[in-house]
């Protein structure tokens, strides 16, 4: 098992400063400071609600104070690999709703999208400004060895979590300013500008002059409301809700105290199904009737565009390396985890034979639900899941159990290794780029591989060192 703090048996240079700092402070002091950090999070109001679980509606995501560190060389790989992937994904989505060249080339069966719940017929023939469907892509990565990263999944709908990246850094730099004095840690301050610039760059055809930006939230009872607020505040734009908005002559307006004001680019943080009751779910009160028509007529740009979720499922995921080769003519910088498609007969056989060593996931599942981790499951659980697989093979994929890397976390007994993953956020506008950091999620239970915040995962500040910063 790869522990990111060490190289062979020795402490990595990248972690030397942190190790010294921890030794200096002592575990007791740090645990006290940890409680202070929690208080800070609560005061700032960075909370997270888990649907349907009851309890405190303002739950904190546990924050671990030991930062996770990437050196410049490692980050170059993560950065270029994630950007490459986002570019290919966007090229694919545009193609899928347009010319469909990749299907004609025989690389992907067309049934993969026509039978896909996330596919929206209404988007056919719509080419968004700059051809970008997914302006913010979250790429979930895991690491198994010093130079071995895998992409676990892609999130092209409305990936969340970036506010934690920025706030984790804010809390760390507020509580431990000394750590940042040396200046080896690349700052993350550029996110707001980066996102605003990308949104401005995709202003719709009808917009002349400076586009007006806004963020659409389902409201304060949504689990990610803090993030919606945070991003609106960061960019200095309005945070709007469905009832604030209306469409007239294919333009979107918000109701203000001085009358209607036009919105040109809307970063919507509600699901496709709810965005336009006149087209999708008629019962939705979160969305705006006519908003899809306005978008298609060129009066509005939606960020991310509806229908971008076609690449998010785990069956489509298996084709992303092909997309990279097909659209970009490049080899994938970050590989996929080897994946068996249970829809294919040979693969299914292999999966059923080896299920106790595999991770089996629902194609459309997310949040760590609806999956089987073979090595940690009982015989009965495996038998039950095998039956589900046989009943509906197309609904599942399987992957080898990866030995996820660990990063040290602070526990009552001092530092202890826990499994981590990483979600960098790629932003596409005139250029495709990302800030030098990402969301590190950590499985706080010893031995656990499930990092999802809905299942007890925590977060860490994620550092990227400047070139030479690890010396």
């Amino acid at each position, binding site marked *: 098992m790869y522990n990111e703090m060490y190289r062979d048996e020795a402490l990595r240079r990248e972690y030397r400063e942190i190790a010294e700092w921890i030794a200096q402070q002592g575990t007791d002091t740090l645990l006290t400071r940890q409680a202070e950090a929690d208080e800070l999070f609560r005061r700032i109001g960075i909370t997270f609600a888990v649907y349907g679980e009851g309890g405190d509606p303002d739950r904190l995501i546990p924050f671990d104070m030991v930062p996770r560190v990437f050196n410049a060389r490692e980050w170059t790989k993560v950065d270029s690999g994630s950007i490459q992937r986002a570019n290919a994904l966007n090229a694919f989505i545009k193609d899928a709703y347009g010319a469909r060249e990749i299907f004609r080339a025989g690389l992907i069966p067309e049934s993969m999208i026509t039978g896909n719940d996330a596919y929206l017929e209404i988007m056919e023939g719509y080419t968004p400004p700059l051809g970008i469907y997914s302006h913010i892509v979250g790429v979930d990565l895991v690491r198994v060895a010093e130079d071995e990263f895998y992409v676990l999944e892609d999130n092209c709908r409305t990936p969340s979590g970036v506010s934690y990246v920025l706030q984790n850094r804010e809390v760390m730099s507020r509580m431990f300013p000394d750590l940042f004095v040396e200046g080896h840690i690349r700052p993350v301050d550029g996110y707001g500008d980066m996102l605003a610039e990308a949104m401005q760059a995709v202003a719709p055809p009808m917009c002349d002059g400076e586009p007006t930006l806004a963020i659409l939230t389902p409201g304060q009872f949504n689990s990610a*409301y803090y993030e919606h607020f945070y991003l609106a505040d960061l960019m200095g734009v309005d945070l*709007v809700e469905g009832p604030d908005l209306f469409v007239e002559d294919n333009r979107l307006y918000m109701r203000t*105290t001085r009358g209607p004001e036009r919105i040109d680019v809307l970063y919507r943080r509600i699901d496709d199904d709810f965005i336009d009751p006149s087209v999708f779910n008629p019962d939705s009160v979160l969305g705006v009737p006519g908003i899809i028509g306005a978008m298609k007529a060129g009066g509005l740009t939606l960020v991310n565009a509806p229908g971008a979720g076609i690449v998010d499922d785990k069956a489509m995921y298996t084709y992303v390396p092909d997309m990279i080769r097909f659209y970009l003519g490049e080899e994938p910088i970050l590989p996929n985890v080897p994946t068996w498609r249970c829809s294919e007969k040979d693969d299914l056989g292999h999966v059923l034979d080896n299920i106790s060593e595999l991770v089996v996931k629902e194609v459309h599942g997310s949040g760590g639900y609806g999956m089987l981790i073979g090595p940690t499951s009982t015989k009965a659980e495996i038998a039950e899941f095998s039956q589900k697989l046989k009943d509906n093979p197309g609904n599942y994929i399987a992957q080898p159990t990866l030995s996820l890397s660990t990063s040290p976390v602070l526990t009552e007994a001092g530092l202890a290794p826990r499994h981590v993953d990483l979600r960098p956020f790629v932003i596409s506008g005139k250029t495709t780029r990302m800030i030098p950091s990402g969301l590190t999620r950590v499985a706080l239970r010893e031995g656990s591989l499930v990092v999802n915040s809905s299942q007890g995962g925590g977060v860490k500040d994620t550092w990227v060192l400047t070139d030479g910063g690890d010396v």
Partner: protein
Amino acid sequence: MLSRTAEGLFWMSRYIERMSNIARLLDAGRRMDALPQEPDARSTEWASILISAGCRDSYPSDLDDANQANALAHLVWDEDNPSSIYACAKAARSNARAVRVALTSEVWDVINQTYLELRDVYRLRPISRDLVGFLDWVKERAALMRGMIASTMLRDDGYAFIEMGKWIERADATARLLDVKYHVLLPSAGNVGGGVDTLQWMNVLRATNSARAYRHVYRRTVEPRGVVDLLVLNRISPRSLITCITQCLLSLHEVAGFEGAQSDLVNRLQALQERLSTTNLDAIFTYGLHEWLTDFIIEVNNLAVAIGDAFSFHPPAPATLQPQPQ
């Protein structure tokens, strides 16, 4: 600014104001409770406090039997009572959360902390043991919110809506307080003009933070006309009706346009302000204080509704639900 944001700020501010008004009322109730009484006199202090808080209808049992314990239960903790301190703190926070983009982090922090402390600390212990300390805390927190708003927020449209919420709520509270004193306490005390009466007027002043102010301004014993003058007509009182309406008008000018409903609203508030500027104590008492205050309370509530209409606090119903002309 977004109409919903304006509405959220307006109500956040009303709840902050209401929270401290209720705390002051309870403080007055506590003091009245401690006054000496004739043995067979029926105690109506807590009923009058509940009515003055606007809780005649929300109070779940017989007002005549109200005592400190059940008044506190209803006015401090009852979540179903939109005027309880707890409900106010919660609603102020909920509104603040919905419009966080329009607030500074300092303002959000103090509003959020107040609610959390109320929920996680005070609610878990009997406040009656240190009622004075608790009420002081509530008043301090509300003052801290006001202070943070005043010292950190931009003087933009949002600030104007916060101001309007504060003055509307305060006008309503001051008027109700005066009305209750005149109509509920006097008959039941059966002691008009006597020592108890003076003490009760004194408590009206205390409930509006005006006891010392009265001395400074009038330099004489507390008597009804002075109290009404101070709390209705006196421009230097921070809680008098004329101050509330004048300040509300100033803030309205900041945000209102020159035509349509917003212009009508300005005219209407202006008319009320002029009525207050030109009337005097004799006219009010001749008309009847209760009748005069009732008219005023109704007009203030109509104005609050008109503010919501003029600035589109409530989005219009979807076009499909409106009757179609034939």
